[in-house]
């Protein structure tokens, strides 16, 4: 391993700018003459708009323009789309209600976009928005996930009962048969709490129109600028793709919430032409709480059948998924194909059947949030497995081991073919790192101090690098899920890599450069990674679902192979040898079996000056591109063990130990991977202990600030014991599986399994706040309390 190659703990190249305040995020950009947009949002969860009078606002100081949904409609600007078609059990397509960027006749959640004011200053825009007179006819709202289909309230005309789809996966008859012969059935009811993504950088957009060239430019906080351009062009109708440039510069965290195409960026780029000035908008934190797509919000009943030996025979799951008031960009895929196919977990389960009822409510749209579907699936499986082990009186680790898949490839009953893994190895390592054998002694020691200690396991699996395109297309995806790369070698031998992946915390400028350094044998400083600009990168699908390593880097590897192949041709001419005799090793092209070599930079220069070969025989230059479409998902997996101590007097849960043993396949940079694990666990612990978005019955979001919505902080997290096992992925050339979401997937069941172990009963929901835990403790100890 070289100092900067694959596997090296290279410090991140991008960090110098971030620690000195030189990062450039959307709100750091300003364009000459820019005006400021402010969105008037609905204060009601559900209302018909009788009329909007923008007249008084238009005359306010500094106001440039005021627009409503009628203005967008007059310009034939289309609504926002959901890019994944799901069909119900009966074959009917999902019921997609209209999703205008600015409301047309109706508002459907608090924060819904009613009008936009564009003014010289943000303060003037806000003042003028208060002067807009909207006559609402307020309607009853539906907010409760379980109640959505049982109410006369109707969110969209297309769906009288608020059902989006009734979908299923798996074999119902085989699953029923498995339950019929079960010795034991474990049942559980779970709520997967609604979360607010809360990237620290609020969403922002800066639209600009050039009357000279008829070109639009949109700076936006996006994880996938090309997808944004495609949607804004082909579906919303802002401008043809070749006339719309989308730039996503440094982006301050995404966690899924910046995948989607939102109303605000749509309006800003459209309005820039209308008002003949650049238009800038940056969300304040309240707007982020109200209108960023939320995550999770599942209500699930699940059952697991086991035989007399504790072997799992079958799993049946019914989930109600709240998709909010509108179908966000990829919302429909999250509780379906990103969820149910993960229900086999790490276990050999012969029969699985899952039904999902997706519903509309008068709440913010719900879409992918770190893990997207996979944390929800893992929570179901790992809570069920833990509970089954307890009911059967078996050790939770050994119950898992007994049911682990041990032969690969493994075909699950729910689509997936796991290529490789060694779940027992991860469990062994985790048990050792967690000092499991002495847990009983620690529990006794806690008890002596009047504290309740518990231990919880989570044997998670995730599916990353969602693909292949042909397969996802057959499942309803509106896009392909490959990735592109272009490797541009300069005459002096330095390299630019243009990638369709987007870095917003993942460190691509370092890891991608490590791959290039490793393959071409050039110093990492001679490699620049270019991303996030549709004028520079030809096309790309962006970064989400832990796909940048497995898919994005594989595309780079493929392009690098082509660069080396072309370099061999150039070297053959220069060295006057046959191409078949040229080999590339340690950064040098040479004639095999001789000491005649050319450095990579020499070959790059020769490729460009083209003096040693005829341009008719060989094209000058050294630049190659590749599109890589994977043959399968990747399947990172691991075991997390959480050990908590609860103070029964206060209900405070303290995480005493955290052990994470993950198998991410081949690791490019262990420092970066470990950081991703830390972050994922932090978010998972946040979901389990602290976070929960709460709407009241009228549809007001009562957790709409950092005062009311508890974000994880340093004191909430323990130090982590992190270990790795490695089984290289077999479906991509680099053996990478992906690491970005693992912690967020693994953590919630580990925490809740630990708390329920400490409590001695299962009756606790997320977030397990001190108040909730205290109440749960009272249920446990009515006698002890005397």
């Amino acid at each position, binding site marked *: 391993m070289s100092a900067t190659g694959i596997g090296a703990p290279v410090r991140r190249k991008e960090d110098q700018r971030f620690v000195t305040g030189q990062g450039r995020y959307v709100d750091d950009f300003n364009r000459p003459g820019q005006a400021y947009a402010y969105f008037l949002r609905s204060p009601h969860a559900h209302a018909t708009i009788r009329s909007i009078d923008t007249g008084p606002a238009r005359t306010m100081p500094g106001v440039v323009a005021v627009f409503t949904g009628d203005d967008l409609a007059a310009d034939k600007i289309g609504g926002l789309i959901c890019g994944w078609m799901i069909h119900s059990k009966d074959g009917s397509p999902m019921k997609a209600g209209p999703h205008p960027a600015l409301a047309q006749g109706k508002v459907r959640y608090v924060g819904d976009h009613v009008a936009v004011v564009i003014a010289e200053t943000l303060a003037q825009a806000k003042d003028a928005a208060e002067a807009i007179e909207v006559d609402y006819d307020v309607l009853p709202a539906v907010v409760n996930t379980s109640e959505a289909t049982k109410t006369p309230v109707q969110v969209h005309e297309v769906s009288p009962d608020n059902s989006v789809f009734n979908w299923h996966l798996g074999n119902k008859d085989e699953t029923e048969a498995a339950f019929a012969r079960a010795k034991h059935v474990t049942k559980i009811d779970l709520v997967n709490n609604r979360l607010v993504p809360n990237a620290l950088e609020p969403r922002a957009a800066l639209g600009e129109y050039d009357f000279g060239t008829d070109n639009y430019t949109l700076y936006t906080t996006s994880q996938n600028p090309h997808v944004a351009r495609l949607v804004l062009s082909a579906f919303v109708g802002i401008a043809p793709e070749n006339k719309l440039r989308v730039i996503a510069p440094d982006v*301050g965290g995404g966690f899924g919430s910046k995948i989607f195409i939102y109303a605000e960026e749509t309006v800003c780029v459209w309005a820039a032409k209308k008002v003949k000035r650049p238009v800038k908008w940056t969300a304040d934190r309240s707007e982020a709480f109200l209108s960023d797509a939320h995550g999770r919000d599942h209500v699930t009943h699940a059952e697991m059948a086991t035989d007399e030996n504790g072997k799992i025979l079958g799993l049946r799951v019914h989930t109600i998924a709240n998709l909010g008031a509108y179908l966000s960009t990829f919302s429909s895929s999250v509780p379906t194909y990103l969820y149910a196919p993960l229900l086999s977990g790490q276990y050999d389960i012969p029969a699985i059947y899952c039904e999902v009822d997706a519903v509309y409510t008068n709440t913010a749209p719900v879409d992918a949030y770190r893990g997207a579907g996979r944390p929800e699936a893992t929570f179901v499986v790992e809570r069920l497995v833990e509970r089954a082990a307890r009911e059967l009186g078996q050790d939770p680790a050994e119950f898992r081991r007994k049911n682990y898949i041990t032969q690969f490839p493994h075909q699950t009953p729910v689509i997936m073919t796991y290529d490789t893994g060694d779940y027992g190895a991860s469990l062994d390592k985790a048990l050792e790192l967690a000092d499991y054998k002495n847990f009983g002694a620690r529990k006794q020691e806690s008890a002596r101090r009047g504290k309740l200690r518990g231990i919880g396991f989570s044997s998670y699996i995730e599916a990353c690098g969602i693909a292949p395109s042909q397969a996802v297309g057959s499942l309803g995806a509106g896009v392909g899920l490959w990735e592109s790369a272009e490797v541009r070698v300069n005459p002096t031998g330095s390299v630019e890599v243009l990638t369709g992946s987007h870095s917003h915390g993942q460190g691509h400028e370092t890891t991608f450069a490590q791959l290039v350094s490793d393959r071409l044998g050039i110093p990492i400083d001679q490699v620049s990674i270019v991303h996030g600009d549709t004028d520079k990168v030809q096309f790309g699908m962006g970064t989400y679902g832990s796909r940048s390593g497995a898919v994005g880097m594989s595309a780079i590897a493929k392009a690098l192979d082509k660069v080396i192949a072309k370099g061999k041709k150039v070297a053959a001419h220069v060295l006057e040898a046959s191409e078949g005799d040229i080999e590339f090793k340690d950064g040098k092209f040479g004639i095999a079996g001789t000491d005649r070599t050319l450095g990579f930079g020499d070959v790059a220069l020769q490729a460009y000056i083209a003096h040693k070969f005829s341009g008719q025989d060989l094209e000058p230059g050294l630049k190659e591109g590749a599109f890589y479409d994977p043959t399968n998902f990747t399947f990172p997996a691991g075991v997390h063990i959480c050990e908590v101590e609860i103070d029964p007097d206060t209900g405070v849960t303290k995480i005493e130990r955290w052990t994470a043993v993950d198998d991410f396949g081949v690791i490019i940079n262990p420092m970066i991977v470990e950081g991703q694990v830390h972050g994922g666990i932090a978010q998972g612990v946040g979901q389990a202990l602290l976070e929960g978005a709460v709407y009241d019955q009228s549809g007001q979001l009562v957790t709409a600030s950092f005062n009311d919505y508890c974000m994880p902080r340093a004191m909430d997290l323990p130090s982590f014991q992190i270990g790795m096992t490695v089984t290289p992925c077999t479906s991509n050339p680099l053996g990478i599986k992906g690491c970005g979401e693992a912690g967020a997937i693994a953590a919630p069941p580990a925490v809740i399994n630990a708390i329920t172990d400490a409590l001695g009963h299962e009756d606790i929901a997320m977030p397990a706040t001190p108040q909730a835990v205290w109440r749960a403790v009272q249920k446990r100890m009515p006698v002890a309390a005397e």
Partner: protein
Amino acid sequence: MAYSLNVNGRIHSVDVDADTPLLWVLRDVIGLTGTKFGCGVAQCGACTIHLDGHAVRSCVTTIESAGSSAIMTIEAIGSTPKGSVVQRAWLEEEVVQCGYCQSGQIMSAVALLNANAMPSDGDIDDAMSGNICRCGTYPRIRAAIKKAARGGSNTGNGG
């Protein structure tokens, strides 16, 4: 109103309303965009700057209340001995992920070390609890502060 501000050792003359938060004076008037907006109500710490060496949330600190205090931002903190050590520790411990909150984290960390040269874990948690990081870089923030407290020396490999 006209104000004369001492920012990073330079005097800037600005003309803004008296209740304008320093955050917007720095970002929109003076053009120092390293200080970030996160919430506007002092609940996240992204906007942390120093007033006479003390960490304050610039989103709720009006220009009027700043008076003649010396203002320092992330752009210049590296020119101070502590700031430079902290930035280096941040790089070596590889704290940063998306980067957005890190200006505020570093400013809070430097203020902590200026007041308490050898903070305990509890001191660090207390001083840093107002700085939210959604990427969850907290373990490394703690490690970097400890490393900086030791003058940049390390007991391990930074992992």
